[in-house]
């Protein structure tokens, strides 16, 4: 992915940087898709702003996914796929989380749709979401050991 720095050439990045200069640490562009790398500390305020801003209106959360880069640190990438129905625009937010004790603020209060997505990531990757109303396993049984989508979890499972 080619970093596209540092000109603030689109409205979203400009608006975010106007509010707080550190809000966007990197802008990536690949195959016409725009990714904003957000420091974890800025995630909640950025999410609230993008969702509620009258001009941007990224009120539709399509998806949240995690990617495990084990053994590279920071180990996890969290990708938030946003959609603005008024601007007909997609946007990806990326937050990097270290592997030791992965914790990140929950965005359930911004987009209620995040509830099950975050539970799924907690279940399959073991990333915890602070402030989530009921963070429990969703696909695997409650007494399952390990987080299957982590790269150090064997495809055949532990035997």
């Amino acid at each position, binding site marked *: *992915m080619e970093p596209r720095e540092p000109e603030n050439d689109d409205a979203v990045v400009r608006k975010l940087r106007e509010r707080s200069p550190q809000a966007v640490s990197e802008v990536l562009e*690949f*195959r016409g*898709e725009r*990714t904003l790398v957000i420091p974890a500390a800025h995630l909640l305020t950025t999410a609230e702003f993008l969702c509620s801003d009258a001009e941007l209106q990224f*009120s*539709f*959360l*399509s*998806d949240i*996914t995690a*990617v*495990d880069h084990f053994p590279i640190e920071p180990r996890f990438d969290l*990708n938030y*796929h946003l959609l603005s*129905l008024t601007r*007909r625009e*997609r946007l*990806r937010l990326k937050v990097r989380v270290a592997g030791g004790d992965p914790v990140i603020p929950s965005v359930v209060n911004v*987009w*209620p*749709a995040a*509830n*099950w*997505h975050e539970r799924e990531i907690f279940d*399959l990757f073991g990333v915890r979401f602070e402030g989530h109303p009921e963070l*429990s*396993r*969703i*696909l*695997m*049984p*409650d007494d399952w050991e390990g987080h*299957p*989508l982590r790269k150090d*979890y064997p*495809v055949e499972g532990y035997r």
Partner: protein
Amino acid sequence: MTTTVETVTGAAETMVLNMGPQHPSTHGVLRVVLELNGERVVKARPVIGYLHTGIEKTCEAKTYSQVIPLTDRIDYLAPLSNNLCYCLAVEKLLGLEVPKRAQYIRVLLTELTRISSHLVWVGTHAIDLGAMSVFLYSFREREELQKIFEMVSGQRMMTSYFRIGGLALEPPPGYLDRIQRFLDVFPSRIQEYEDLLTKNRIWMGRTQGVGTLSAEDAIAFGVSGPSLRGSGVAYDVRKFFPYSSYEEFDFDVPVQTAGDCYARYLVRVAELRESMKIVRQAIEKIPAEGPIRTNAPGIVPPPREEMKTSIEGLIYHFKIFTEGFATPPGEVYQAVESPRGELGFFVASDGSAKPHRVKVRAPSFVNLQALPRLVEGRLLADVVACIGTIDIVLGEVDR
């Protein structure tokens, strides 16, 4: 997935009822834990995971082409939509352009898939609510569609017909005539379903005003597809972010504003007619001759004849099917409008021949989150209507 039923503390007059996972109206293995006050639902909690097969983990151990058969099994009522979405995602990652003929055939078949999936929905939804006969009629038409899929791809359900860079094989002679014959009778068949349901007093009583979802709630919960359009939001991926040449087709996006089960029924029936419109245009557009695969040596297998006659063709064939092909490192998200809503594939590549991560944004999984909002405060009998109306496929919910 929680396998126990908790008792509710401090609420003497409510009882907890466990519905599913083995229950005919849950369309698979959905379990809903209901807290009831008399016949009123106080609280509903869907419990999923009974059909989790770890498809996303399996993808990471397969080459890019080997993932395609797995995508069939995610939403088994609309396998071609899944094939299409995954292939488009990988093609986007590779920067491949697919020949127009293949694009039109893809549109043709995915729209037939939408009709077939909506037919299953209208039949099973009606049977859930006590209207037996619609099921028999809608499955009659679905059978013809299954035969068309078999004719084109060799498989009734798990088609795997779309491949990275185009199609698996040249469609057989006469396939367009057969689809045309289906189109000739199908409008009268839609009329039959409508005669049985649309003005039926019992049907209206069971669906009107039931499971109401406001537009704000639908967006907040990420609901997409006919369930969102029944609440008055005209979001359709085919119109917003056209793919596979959908911008060249003329069709409307049916929208209803009531937001209840009846509105979603009307949207889906209208979509049957719109899909038919698209199929008719596709039949006109598809050129009789032309390549069905893009020319990308090392990524797309060469034509059979070339593989048999030229040494380069044989080498490429051998390499593609033994070791796959490498992709540029990067991440892409591709969405299509599946019969259930926005189906998305997120594919992350680390530059090797196997995907680093494949994530399926399953519309059923997301739409199911809104179920408590639909049923809470309503009668127990309405739960059946509400599960049916969001049109979930558990294979897709649990993956």
